[in-house]
């Protein structure tokens, strides 16, 4: 319950700060802004990319067809959004219980330069065991992101390092590889878990 308070203060605080900063290094897009056509992820069957999972297996979009799938793009040098989302996903998977074992859950890096197979293996090891980490050559990562209509961009930081801006939504596909829905960042768990259950249900419907 303590956390709930923090979250509420947070909303007020961040709102106040945003107002006061008012400078605009970030884009202020209306929450209901329509998504341009063509931004909807392709069906998995229409994607084409070759990556390697954190155990060294060759993987691609076809690896995911046959089971409902959850996909998230990120990078392991990400201090805030990525560990938060992977923790959230881990929590959703715990809530799903045994059903979690019926899903593919994949974390695809947008920073293959630093996220080697070994780095991905170490990182995903801290989260729910169902989560797989995929990496590969930069051009293949780009093709994967293109298929999901995810975007990412390398941004230099003050210290001479770099960070990555990236799509932080979680993509949900049914067992046939059709997009069911997306879970946006900041979406409460009360909404996320039913969405995942829907992907699992559509799987059952598709099978009959």
């Amino acid at each position: 319950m303590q956390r709930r308070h923090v979250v509420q203060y947070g909303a007020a605080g961040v709102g106040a700060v945003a107002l006061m900063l008012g400078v605009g290094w970030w884009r202020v897009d209306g929450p209901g802004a329509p998504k341009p056509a063509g931004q909807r992820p392709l069906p998995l069957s229409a994607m084409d990319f070759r990556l390697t999972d954190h155990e060294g297996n060759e993987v691609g979009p076809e690896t995911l067809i046959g089971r409902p799938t959850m996909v998230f793009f990120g990078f392991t040098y990400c201090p805030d959004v990525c560990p938060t989302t992977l923790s959230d996903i881990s929590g959703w998977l715990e809530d799903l219980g045994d059903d979690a074992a019926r899903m593919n859950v994949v974390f695809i890096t947008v920073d293959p330069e630093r996220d080697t197979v070994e780095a991905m293996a170490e990182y995903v090891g801290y989260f729910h065991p169902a989560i797989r980490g995929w990496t590969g050559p930069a051009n293949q990562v780009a093709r994967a992101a293109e298929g999901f209509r995810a975007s990412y961009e390398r941004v230099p930081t003050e210290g001479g390092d770099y960070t990555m801006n990236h799509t932080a939504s979680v993509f949900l596909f049914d067992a046939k590889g059709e997009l069911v829905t997306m879970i946006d960042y900041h979406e409460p768990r009360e909404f996320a878990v039913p969405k995942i259950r829907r992907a699992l249900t559509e799987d059952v419907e598709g099978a009959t």
Partner: protein
Amino acid sequence: MTKLSYINGLPLVLLLSGMSTPAFAGSEDVVVENAWSRASIGVNRPGAAYMTVRNTGEDTVTLTGLTTPLAVMPQIHETKTNADGVSSMAPADEITIEPGQSVALEPGGLHAMLMKLQNPMIEGETFPLTLTFSDGGEVTVEVPILGIAARGPES
């Protein structure tokens, strides 16, 4: 609870004697609550810490920066997620907190970004983080380090 420890930028003697601090306009009334951070893998990746900064006083306070022996470049950052679902992170400017208000540094919003770690962040340990304010005051908090997959101060 080390989380609530709160020290002005004053000689320790003054603090221990419990004297009030007329030299600082506001920051002596700042309380930091629910601080937490995630463990790091080594020192190459930046860390992040979260907390609620509450202004219990009568004066507006402005948080201007951070220092910590843990990181060469600690900075307050803000993550924004736009309508296309793309998240980005950039240094936040000064953060003003009105009397009676608080600002939450929390996942997906403001965070204490800990760049160029001097030591790995090890679960179960703590580190001191000093918040500096425009009136010259400082508040130091001991930040507990939770697991890499931690979701909040109580997990």
